[in-house]
């Protein structure tokens, strides 16, 4: 407002009136798109996103047989039933174990490999990078039979170890590329300075580089956790005992029953969703920066 008055008061006789709108439009065009251009499509999309979530909450909380569109009166019967009768308590423990082990293993192995890729030139580097890229085209689902045979030889069928190994292996290539890009963004001179101060390579890495890798580690770690938490096929194939199975397999069992218990399915779904939603809420703000710093370009 003040600037407008100022420009009008300024001695720019005839052109004064057409002149001021210019900066105004310029400002508006990118920084300030009309509000409804944002809110209208966003609300439409939010309805599409949130109605399914609401639906599952509704089914999980309302009593069986109710057709009310509001979960009232609230009942937790479905949760109790799923947790004990349908062994989701056990599945939950197994899934947490698989998720955490995959997270730790993937992060450690990818960190070592990523560091080598970022800091050294060595003979097989190009070949190794090519192998990482090619592995993206290899469908895990289509390797089920040979993988099953390998795990059978290793006596890992029916053990969570098979699932942890398989999840880790298929997480590794992208994690390694992502982390090596993050490491490249940390100037080598920082490490060299630490060596001069008497640190060895490992200490220098731990003290100087590691803290700067936080966004990358969070991105890679949470991907590993979420993926292995969500993944279904390996657990379905390699784990036969009911007490070894994971949440997605449990959900599938609920779904493929002859008459599906919708309340139990919804409650099971919420149990499946809670950890990933928590992880997601935690990493959400790192996600955008993590991708822009580490992914695709590097």
């Amino acid at each position, binding site marked *: 407002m003040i600037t407008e008055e100022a420009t009008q008061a300024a001695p720019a006789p005839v052109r004064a009136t057409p002149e001021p709108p210019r900066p105004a439009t*310029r400002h508006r*065009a*990118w920084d300030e*798109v009309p509000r409804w251009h*944002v809110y209208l499509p*966003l609300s439409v999309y939010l309805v*599409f*996103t949130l109605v399914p*979530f609401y*639906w*599952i909450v509704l*089914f999980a909380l309302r009593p069986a047989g109710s057709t009310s569109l509001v979960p009232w009166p609230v009942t937790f019967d479905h949760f109790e039933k799923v947790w004990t009768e349908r062994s989701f308590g056990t599945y939950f423990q197994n899934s947490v174990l698989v998720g955490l082990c995959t997270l730790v293993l993937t992060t450690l192995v990818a960190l*070592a*490999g990523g*560091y080598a890729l970022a800091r*050294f030139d*060595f003979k*097989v580097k190009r070949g190794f990078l090519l*192998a990482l890229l090619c*592995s993206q*085209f*290899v*469908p895990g689902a*289509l*390797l*089920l*039979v*040979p*993988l099953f*045979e*390998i795990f059978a030889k290793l006596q890992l069928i029916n053990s969570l170890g098979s699932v942890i190994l*398989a999840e*880790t*292996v298929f997480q*590794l290539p992208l994690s390694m590329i992502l982390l090596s890009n993050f490491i490249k963004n940390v100037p080598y001179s920082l490490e060299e300075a630490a*060596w001069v101060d008497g640190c060895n390579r490992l200490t220098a890495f731990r003290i100087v580089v590691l803290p700067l890798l936080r966004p990358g580690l969070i991105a890679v770690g949470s991907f590993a956790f979420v993926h292995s*938490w*969500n993944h*279904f096929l390996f657990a379905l194939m390699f784990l036969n005992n009911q007490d070894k199975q994971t949440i*997605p397999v449990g*959900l599938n069992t*609920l*779904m*493929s029953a002859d008459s599906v218990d*919708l309340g139990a*399915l*919804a409650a099971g779904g919420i149990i*499946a969703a809670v950890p990933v*939603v928590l*992880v*997601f809420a935690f990493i*959400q*703000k790192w*996600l*955008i*920066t993590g991708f*822009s710093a580490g*992914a*695709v*370009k590097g």
Partner: protein
Amino acid sequence: MAQAAAVAKPPAPPRRRRASATPRRLPYLLIAPAALLMLGFIAYPVVSVFYYSLQHYNPTKPWRNGYAGLDNFVRVFTDDPQFWDTLTFSAKWVFVEVGLQLLFGLALALIVNQTFVGRGLGRAMVFSPWAVSGVLTSAIWVLLYNSQTGLTRYLADLGIGSYGTSWLSDTSTVFPAAVVADLWRGVPFFAILILADLQSVSKDLYEAAEVDGAGRLQQFWHITLPHLKDAIVLSTLLRAVWEFNNVDLLYTLTGGGPAGETTTLPLYIANTSVDAHNFGYASALTTVAFVILLFCSMVYLRLSKFGGASK
């Protein structure tokens, strides 16, 4: 002063030497765990799939096992209508899913890239299905599509559609129904990647375009889109491979049905190997699928001139 200090600092050469003293074996040691894991659990299985594809191998019919030459491949191409059906469906599925996900993902990224009140919360909410698994997505949409208690029932209450409609068991509605369910989960992936890439577009470019009198559509066409090109090419490719290979959603949502209407090639392969135990033939199918995938990816990267513009 600083210059003098730098020049006068002799420890530089020994520091160099020390840095390069260890590296000889160090990089190999560092990539060893990853390389071993990938050799054992990706490379070896891939090679054994190639090997089995040349074998008759079916544990339930051991008397037929043995070298098969190209028999399996001949059968794939000449004597297996299911291969062509499922391959066509896979192509349709990937094309529709990736196209729509990119379109909506791009639109969504542009919207949440604006500054508005509640942006953080808005982003978190529209991105949230990204974290949801294929099986959970199926569970949610099974509840929504259920004929007695699902959305159709309430829509019918409002006079839209008819009671008892089950979108997942009708051959004419199952495809769009599955597409919508997968879109729900897939759009955020593109939105997140594109939004991340949007952060690096220089504001100056828009201001310059503004001065030249370019409208918002022109700015999008001439600045935003070229900037996003590499990210779009890469994410569509990764997504297409992923959509082709992924079986979680269709396996649990439709089981490939009704009447094989939604069976993708990987689902067909999984059925052939797991249910029918025909490992030899399934391996041949896998090999063919792998070659198709690799070939299409190469063609796509070549046609889109990936990385050409920015380098």
